[in-house]
């Protein structure tokens, strides 16, 4: 880098400004630093640039949260396989990877307030002719009657077909609980994008994922693929996704929730959602 006079001046100003500000914050509380883990391969929540830089909805959101809650942070990239284990083992302080809040997970970890409304649905290739009823509607898995009706309709179409899903996700739990014994072959993948890849390759008749994740995929593949069937929420599908923290880490969970609440109140969260998803997927907290 060539240092011109103006950059030199700017650096000098920044240094003076830094000197002026630094002691104040240091005195205030000795800024905390937290380490967050993400997958870096779950568009548009989190993705990786060729130079290794992480970007996406969750990274923008985290930057804003850190500013409001006044802490330093670092985000590391980690395979989903073993991510929660790493959190339990204390390799990092929190996970931000579109993790859904479920009862089962609450047994081993804690969550912040949710930042997406959740909901999962099926995705198919247009040429496959697979069509599920109830597209666009919501089915709450805690409502047994509605669930039974929706599952019966879906099982009728998917009988004998192969459905792909990302391993150990709420969608995998859903398939195992409701469709495994109805003649549906379930194939589990180590990463999310592999499901879409095999759908496009014609190895899968359908895939299942969160509505937000599918919409990101469809953005690039409007001609070939489409979402079909109702959006499932509640029950094993949980109530939206949130930051995951170690069991009992109320301090960090509280910091994150408080900042999320303020972002929801002043509309920042909705703005970010529109920027990355083209629609509102965030709840009013």
């Amino acid at each position, binding site marked *: 880098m060539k240092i011109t006079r103006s950059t030199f001046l700017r650096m000098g100003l920044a240094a003076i400004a830094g000197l002026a500000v630094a002691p104040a914050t240091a005195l205030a509380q000795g800024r905390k630093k937290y380490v967050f883990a993400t997958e870096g391969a779950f568009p548009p929540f989190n993705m990786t640039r060729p130079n290794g830089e992480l970007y996406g909805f969750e990274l923008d959101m985290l930057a804003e949260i850190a500013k409001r809650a006044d802490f330093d942070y670092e985000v590391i990239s980690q395979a989903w396989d073993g991510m929660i284990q790493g959190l339990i083992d204390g390799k990092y302080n929190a996970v931000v990877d579109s993790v859904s809040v479920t009862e089962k997970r609450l047994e081993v970890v804690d969550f912040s307030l949710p930042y997406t409304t959740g909901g999962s649905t099926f995705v198919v290739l247009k040429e496959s002719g697979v069509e599920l009823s109830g597209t666009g509607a919501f089915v709450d898995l805690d409502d047994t009657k509605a669930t039974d009706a929706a599952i019966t309709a879906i099982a009728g179409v998917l009988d004998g077909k192969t459905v*792909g899903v990302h391993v150990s996700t709420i969608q995998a739990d859903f398939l195992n609980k409701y469709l495994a014994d109805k003649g549906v072959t379930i194939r589990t*993948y180590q990463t999310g994008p592999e499901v879409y*890849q095999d759908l496009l390759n*014609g*190895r899968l008749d359908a895939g299942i994922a969160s509505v937000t994740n599918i919409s990101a995929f469809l953005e690039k593949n409007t001609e070939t693929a489409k979402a079909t069937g109702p959006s499932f929420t509640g029950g094993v599908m949980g109530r939206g996704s949130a930051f995951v923290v170690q069991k009992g880490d109320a301090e960090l969970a509280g910091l994150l929730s408080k900042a999320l609440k303020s972002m929801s109140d002043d509309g920042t969260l909705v703005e970010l959602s529109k920027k990355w998803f083209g629609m509102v997927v965030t709840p009013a907290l």
Partner: protein
Amino acid sequence: MDFAFLSSIFTQLLKGLPLTLNLGVLALVGGFCLSLILNLMRTTRVGNALASAYVFVFRGTPLLIQIFMIYYGLAGFGFIRHGFLWPFLREPYWCGLLALILNDAAYTSEILRGGLRAVPRGAVEAGRVSGMTRLTVMRRITLPIAVRQALPAYSNEVISILKSTALVSTITLMEVTGIARAAASETWRAVEIFLCAAAIYLALSLVVTRLSAWAERRLSPWQFGETP
């Protein structure tokens, strides 16, 4: 130690054993046939170059990358997705098996080549002189001696392929390791589960070691003075 959990995991993992064995055995059979062809190719100059290149590529790269290349890589080409092989390549099972066969063939062909080089020239000449055809010499003299020579190295390759089958779990196949990975991410008790899986593979490799020691003894009558 939670014995109820361990035994339930064991029964769960054992359900993957048939697929592990199926892949291992078929990969060895297929790999052996292909390695014979590779060694036959080595008699001509062009064939020799081709065989060397094949062995170079498949021994010089990790099996994992070979598996991914066959499973995800090939499927990216339209002509393969619409070609006559697609009904096979569509299935993860056939992709995994193909990768294992191709990989095993590269290693086995080198082991066999070493064995073939150890066959005394005189034995082959004696066969020719007594009027055996090339094929008979191959079947009754060259191969038996070569196989006996190669046996210790080959038993290592058998164990190595049985262990390599664990890698096809990355393309959705539910053999022992595949089941272990799924169970680990469901219950978050990875250590116990992977230890159970390790015990299963260890038992398999011990069986192979015993079998090969027995075969070596059976096939070495000149060392022990007994006729088989």
